[in-house]
């Protein structure tokens, strides 16, 4: 007789099933299966698990495009067009960037995602001592409107989304984009772009800050308010969880810290009297995704969407549904890839792409298989675009919205992560908010502690990395071609900037920089929005470094605190 027969309820059936297979359960390879966040993973999930968590379909999940947007921010998602394919890239000089980006557009890419070199991100022109050895080393050296004129020559800037990673000087990068559009005769209303303008995480996770937090927040609020009024299709802020994850934070901390940063931005804007329902529709989120613990990654991004909707609606009392929609730009985690047997990474990248797509994100950006060896080669970048196209056009996952929605395991994970993230947010509130928490070194320490734990687990093979701690082969690089910036690029860029200074109207530049200094020295209530001053300076061909120097003279610099 089948012992399962006659089970009246699912509960009865589960109990009989457990009795019947008890012996087989002993063959399991571990006594406990747990996630990185310490959540126990059960043998099997059923509707009973969701019931036990108080799961309510309409309240917790609802339909695509409906609050709290757990399933999707739009009702049709990829049925109305695939996610945007992005590839973070930038070579040293403006002409090299121009050739690279034209080749990418040729290959079917519809975004340009500018990776700047570190001197530009830190507001040092190529001829400064601080820049020596790093000009064009990890990205593009684009410091003036003249550089933009070369780098974007012949590129349709009203058709292409231009994303930039600048952070501390982000407002200047937006000014470059706007000034360049005006010069080309492209209306600001038609411009599409995304700016990584999340300065708070620079103090706590990424380390590329310039100014102290208070004036840095002023620039953020100015750029948000200015773009909301003048550049309706522009996203002047990506709030980043990505860098917390890369710094070592687990999924709960990653999402909680980013939400706490976003709360700090909204509070700063509200204090300045900015209508939050005007700026929130222009926020994006830069998250991380990876192949490793695939379901946890999908659950994490769905939990973020739900929590952001709740925070905007309940904590800030916003009314505009556009403010509650969490638009996600997700970038694959570079630390999830291995140095050994680098071609294995192609499989990891493909699985990670699937995770982001199943999480229903708006833009996907990938790392490349040669990530652990250096700056990506052009071949590796093109392969990344192809991987996205294969996942998007060949698997069929774009045909229905949120194909995993309602899965017992996945929704259990979402509920558990949501609870833990809320708890972490409460803790940050008790510390006095994210600015105070960063001052105390809380997110920094928490991320590094987890990074240390992960490193131990990798070294003990508790976390398996194929080719690194298991299934190793003798030194095997499979012929990766490592990209190196040509040694003469620094000299070329120093010459470019010297030539620019010689040929522009020096008096106009000085006037514009003086105006910036004067406006920055006054309070926001006195001098208003700084964006028009920045645009004017850029139009006079002042460089990013010169504008940062002017602001440094007024605001000073942030000094690295002792963290250990």
């Amino acid at each position: 007789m089948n012992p399962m027969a006659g089970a009246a309820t699912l509960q009865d059936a589960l109990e009989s099933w457990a009795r019947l297979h008890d012996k087989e359960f002993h063959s399991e390879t571990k006594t406990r299966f747990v996630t990185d966040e310490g959540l126990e993973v059960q043998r099997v999930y059923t509707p009973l698990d969701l019931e036990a968590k108080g799961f309510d379909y309409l309240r917790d999940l609802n339909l695509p495009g409906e609050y709290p947007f757990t399933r999707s921010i739009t009702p049709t998602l990829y049925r109305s067009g695939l996610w945007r394919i992005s590839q973070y890239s930038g070579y040293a000089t403006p002409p090299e960037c121009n050739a690279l980006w034209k080749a990418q557009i040729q290959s079917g890419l519809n975004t340009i995602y500018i990776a700047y070199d570190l001197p530009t991100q830190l507001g040092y022109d190529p001829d400064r001592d601080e820049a020596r050895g790093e000009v064009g080393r990890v990205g593009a050296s684009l410091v003036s409107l003249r550089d933009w004129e070369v780098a974007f020559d012949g590129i349709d800037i009203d058709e292409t989304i231009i994303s930039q990673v600048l952070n501390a000087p982000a407002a200047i990068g937006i000014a470059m984009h706007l000034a360049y559009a005006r010069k080309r005769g492209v209306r600001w209303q038609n411009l599409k772009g995304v700016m990584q303008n999340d300065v708070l995480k620079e103090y706590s996770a990424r380390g590329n800050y310039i100014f102290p937090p208070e004036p840095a927040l002023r620039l953020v609020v100015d750029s948000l308010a200015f773009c909301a009024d003048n550049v309706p299709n522009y996203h002047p802020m990506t709030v980043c969880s990505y860098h917390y994850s890369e710094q070592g934070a687990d999924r709960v901390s990653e999402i909680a810290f980013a939400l706490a940063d976003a709360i700090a931005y909204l509070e700063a804007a509200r204090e300045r009297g900015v209508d939050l329902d005007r700026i929130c529709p222009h926020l994006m989120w830069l998250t991380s995704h990876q192949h490793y613990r695939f379901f946890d990654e999908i659950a994490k991004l769905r939990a973020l969407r739900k929590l952001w909707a709740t925070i905007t609606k309940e904590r800030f009392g916003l009314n505009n549904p556009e403010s509650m929609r969490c638009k996600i730009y997700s970038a694959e985690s570079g630390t999830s890839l291995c140095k050994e047997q680098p071609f294995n990474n192609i499989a990891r990248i493909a699985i990670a792409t699937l995770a982001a797509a199943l999480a229903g994100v708006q833009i996907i950006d990938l790392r490349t298989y040669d990530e652990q060896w250096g700056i990506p080669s052009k071949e590796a970048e093109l392969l990344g675009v192809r991987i996205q196209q294969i996942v998007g056009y060949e698997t069929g996952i774009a045909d229905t919205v949120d194909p995993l929605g309602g899965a017992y395991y996945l929704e259990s994970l979402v509920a558990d992560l949501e609870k833990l993230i809320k708890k972490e947010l409460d803790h940050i509130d008790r510390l006095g908010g994210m600015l105070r928490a960063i001052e105390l070194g809380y997110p920094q320490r928490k991320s590094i502690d987890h990074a240390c734990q992960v490193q131990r687990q990798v070294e003990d093979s508790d976390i398996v990395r194929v080719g690194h701690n298991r299934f190793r082969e003798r030194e095997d690089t499979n012929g990766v071609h490592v990209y190196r910036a040509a040694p003469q690029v620094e000299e070329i860029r120093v010459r470019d900037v010297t030539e620019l200074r010689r040929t522009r109207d020096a008096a106009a530049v000085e006037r514009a920089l003086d105006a910036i200094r004067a406006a920055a020295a006054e309070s926001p209530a006195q001098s208003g929005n700084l964006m028009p001053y920045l645009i004017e300076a850029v139009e006079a061909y002042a460089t990013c470094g010169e504008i940062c120097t002017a602001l440094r003279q007024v605001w000073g610099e942030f000094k690295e605190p002792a963290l250990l």
Partner: protein
Amino acid sequence: METKIRVLTVRPSLDGHWRGLAVVSAALRDAGMEVIYGGTALNADEITNAALQEDVDVIGLSMYGRFGIAYKVARQLPKMHSNRPLLLVGGTVPPTEVDSLKAAGVDEVFSAGSSLDSIVEYIFAKCADRAKNE
């Protein structure tokens, strides 16, 4: 009483990512060493002077580029004092750079993927050798 091995850890670049250096620093501290976390330092003189002032046994540089600084520190060290600290480099170091760094006087390079244990063991072994030879 046995004196602790003293290590100066520094990031000589504009790159802000501190995960690698922080994790290695924590591991050295857990292994019983005294770690002086120098954070960002952009020139060789600053690093060499800090090593001299702090009288360290080991200098650890976390790098992805700007290798010129490592070469300069290596050149400066022998002139500094007789008991020259070990000079270690870690990070994303291209294979071709590894050989030239070592030829220039860097004692060891631990590129991405190196285990914490290998770094700790190397430092203990080298410092023990030196103590024997003193």
